[in-house]
């Protein structure tokens, strides 16, 4: 059965419109931002008093942050959003080198969700986003809040959600758990759907293969003996290997002989997944082990905060692994953010005296340039920063610092050109820093952490005990004699067999299931039936039935009609118990696979939206990024199709001459 919905209710145009709005929302909705232009003009103003003195350390203390926070809470209790207090908190935090104030941002977000005044809530969400710009949850919560309370703000919630997904993709603490969630759930869904495919294919094709094998075997073999022989072929390898999986795979191979190309594609996908299991197992282990790993500690030190305990820990780790430049860079970054002249000198010395990996080179040069600026040496800084600029094509930091260096050198043209370059690279980041009016190392200069992709590479390179996530379950299914390492070989053999089996199909020598009665449609009858898609009995009864003996026709219609109703009923019933199986049984395997995967994946996402490794900051809801909603949507769409399949039935595909439809 095809999913047929009347045009005016068609889901496709609606989905396409949503997708288009989602993809193009940001550029379409882009507007001139007068405050941003004013900031840029101010930064670029000629004739401003030149301050060539060293850039000092922050004058802010932790207690200032607490004061702002308490003030904000007291203002909030009076019914105001407390935006000034949040802005002071953000600026003071930045001044102290707190790149993401995660806890505070989540606190603001929790309060913003309770705001009845949409304008207040909206502003508080924006403040939460500024407090932790790398955290995706304030964006998602913002989108959901506007969706619930202000449907007219459609563009804004689309933009917030879009930004949320972008940030979630970049933020390792979200990206890796989500990747693991979709990886494991996806594999489970594919394997589940593949199992229903196998059951349906067995019902659909096993008899056909047995019929053809009976034709092939020498005279003397009865039909029943052929079936027993075929079952032995399926069962014996599994029994010898003590492996239920071997039985299933042999069965998949046997039924693949008679498959159409769309069914063959699903079989190929099944064997490809099995072949990739060792790879998937390793990837799953890499993703799962990120939580609590040294790489995650480096992310926290560079992108959240690095207090005294963190610095001590970094120092100890550096002592233990003196050649680890990533730890050293993190330590130097923490040193720079403290703002002491001694620390800046150490940064320059370390950067100058050591070799650095290529992916770190530009970042340490930028750090050294920023340190020179902090020491009041703009000429030396320019040399570092020009080198850094060449290697950090996507980062605004070196160009921005170069602008500061030219400003300190009283070079207006150089500063203007550098600012233009910085805004070209990352306008948001530049605009954010231009709002910090203080002159301290963390507000005045840009010293970003490493690109977030670097931490994944670092995590992979860090030695650790590998744990196999799939192996225990593999042993249950495959037995102890078939190790997981053999999965690649099994997958490759199966893949090759199914692919080469296509040649048999091309020769059109195999029988195909009759779309009416489900029995074998013998290709030798093509001469009689004119290569009709029905088998000979069905053809004689339903196509040329007018020429049959009356009694014979009545008899045939009763018998064959019963088979037709049995096939149809079976497809309907199986569609209810295992969505997609009815489609598989009708020969619509790609639809069946899509339905099966969608149903199982949808259920998993709906009931386990937090995934397997639950991210630390995914608090207050279990539907972050619309995971649960997506799951229910998938289940709902599947259920609509299943209801259609049950009510209208699933038409079997019609295979004619040469195995074509």
């Amino acid at each position, binding site marked *: 059965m095809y999913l047929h919905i009347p045009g005016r209710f068609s889901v496709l145009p609606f989905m396409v419109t949503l997708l288009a709005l989602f993809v193009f929302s940001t550029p379409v909705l882009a507007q001139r931002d007068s405050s941003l232009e004013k900031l840029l003009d101010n930064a670029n103003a000629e004739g401003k008093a030149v301050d060539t003195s060293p850039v000092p350390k922050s004058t802010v203390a932790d207690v200032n942050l607490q004061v702002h*926070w308490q003030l904000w809470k007291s203002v909030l209790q009076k019914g105001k959003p407390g935006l000034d207090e949040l802005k002071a908190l953000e600026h003071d935090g930045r001044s102290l080198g707190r790149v993401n104030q*995660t*806890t505070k941002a*989540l*606190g603001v977000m*929790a*309060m913003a969700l309770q705001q009845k005044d949409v304008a207040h809530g909206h502003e508080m969400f924006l403040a939460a986003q500024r407090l932790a710009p790398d955290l995706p949850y304030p964006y998602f919560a913002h989108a959901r809040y506007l969706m619930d309370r202000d449907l007219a703000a459609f563009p804004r919630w689309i933009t917030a959600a879009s930004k949320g997904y972008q940030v979630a993709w970049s933020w390792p603490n979200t990206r890796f*758990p989500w990747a693991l969630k979709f990886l494991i759930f996806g594999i489970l869904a594919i394997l589940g759907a593949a199992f229903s495919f196998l059951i349906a294919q067995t019902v659909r094709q*096993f*008899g056909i293969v*047995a*019929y053809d094998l*009976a034709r092939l075997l020498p005279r003397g073999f009865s*039909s*029943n003996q052929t*079936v027993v022989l075929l*079952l032995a072929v399926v*069962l014996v390898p599994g029994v010898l290997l*003590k492996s*239920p999986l071997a*039985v*299933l795979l042999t069965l998949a191979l046997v039924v693949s002989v008679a498959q159409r190309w769309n069914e063959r594609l699903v079989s190929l996908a099944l064997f490809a997944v099995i072949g990739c299991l060792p790879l998937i197992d390793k990837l799953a282990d890499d993703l*799962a082990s990120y*939580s*609590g790993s040294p790489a995650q500690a480096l992310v926290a030190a560079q992108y959240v905060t690095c207090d005294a305990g963190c610095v001590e820990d970094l120092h100890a780790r550096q002592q233990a692994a003196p050649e680890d430049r990533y730890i050293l860079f993190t330590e130097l970054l923490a040193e720079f953010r403290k703002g002491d002249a001694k620390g800046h000198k150490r940064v320059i010395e370390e950067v100058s005296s050591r070799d650095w990996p290529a992916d770190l080179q530009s970042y340490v040069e930028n750090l050294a340039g920023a340190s020179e600026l902090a020491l009041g040496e703009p000429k030396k800084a320019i040399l570092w920063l020009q080198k850094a600029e060449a290697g950090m094509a996507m980062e605004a930091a070196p160009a921005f610092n170069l602008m500061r260096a030219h400003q300190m050198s009283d070079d207006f043209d150089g500063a203007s050109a550098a600012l233009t370059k910085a805004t070209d690279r990352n306008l948001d980041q530049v605009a954010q820093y231009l709002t910090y009016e203080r002159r301290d190392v963390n507000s005045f200069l840009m010293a970003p952490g490493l690109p977030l992709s670097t931490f994944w590479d670092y995590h992979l390179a860090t030695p650790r005990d590998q*744990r*196999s*996530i799939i*192996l*225990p*379950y593999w*042993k*249950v*299914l495959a037995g*102890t004699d078939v190790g997981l390492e053999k999965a690649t070989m099994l997958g490759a053999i199966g893949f090759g067999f199914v692919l080469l089996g296509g040649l048999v199909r091309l020769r059109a020598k195999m029988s195909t299931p009759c779309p009416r009665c489900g*029995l*074998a449609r013998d290709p030798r009858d093509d*001469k*009689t039936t*004119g290569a009709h898609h029905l088998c*000979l*009995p069905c053809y*004689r009864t339903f196509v*040329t*039935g007018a*020429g*049959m*003996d*009356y009694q*014979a*026709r009545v008899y045939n219609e009763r018998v064959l009609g019963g088979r037709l109703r049995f096939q149809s009923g079976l497809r309907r019933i199986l569609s209810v118990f295992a969505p997609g199986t009815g489609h598989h049984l009708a020969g619509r395997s790609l639809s069946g696979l899509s339905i099966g995967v969608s149903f199982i994946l949808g259920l998993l996402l709906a009931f386990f939206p937090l995934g*397997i*490794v*639950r*991210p*630390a*900051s995914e*608090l*207050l809801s*279990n539907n972050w990024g619309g995971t649960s909603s997506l799951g229910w949507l998938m289940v709902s769409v599947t259920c609509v199709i299943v209801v259609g399949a049950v009510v209208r039935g699933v038409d079997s595909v019609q295979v004619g001459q040469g195995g074509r439809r």
Partner: protein
Amino acid sequence: MSRKKYPTPISVPIEMPDDLPIVRDNSELLFPQDATAPKSSKGVGAVVVHHVVTFLQILMVLGLGAWSYVTYKNTELFEAPEPGQRNALEPYLVDAQIQRIDQALRVYEALNEKFPVTLDVLVEAGLLEPSDLGYPASSVYRYQRFGEGFKLEGPRTPANTSASHEDALIFDEQQ
């Protein structure tokens, strides 16, 4: 509801050229076979094969299910993995859960100026899901509030005995 009436085949004699397969049937119509002669049984073999196959398939699926079950249950028939091996993910999950509960405690403290008395308060406040305090399955997190800090310990299951997972997260604001 009336049935749609079709003419009987005999009332619709069709003349067809000889090279089409339908002619065979028409010829049978024009020259009826002897009624006492046994009727041809074309396709009967296939029907038998089909039903036997279906029956055997059902047996096979049931057998596979039973086989998987006894394997999983580690009966004497076949070997199953050690119980500890089934929890390869558990240490990672415990690590992540400790971070998650820790984050929730800090957010709670930021908003309420004190840490909660028990972890259940975090669930009541909506910060955590009810399942968070027992995830992964059967895990229990020990939490103790003191002064301006807290101590949070992860479960110590047989699968969770490696050094890196003897977690005891201590947070003291006075330090």
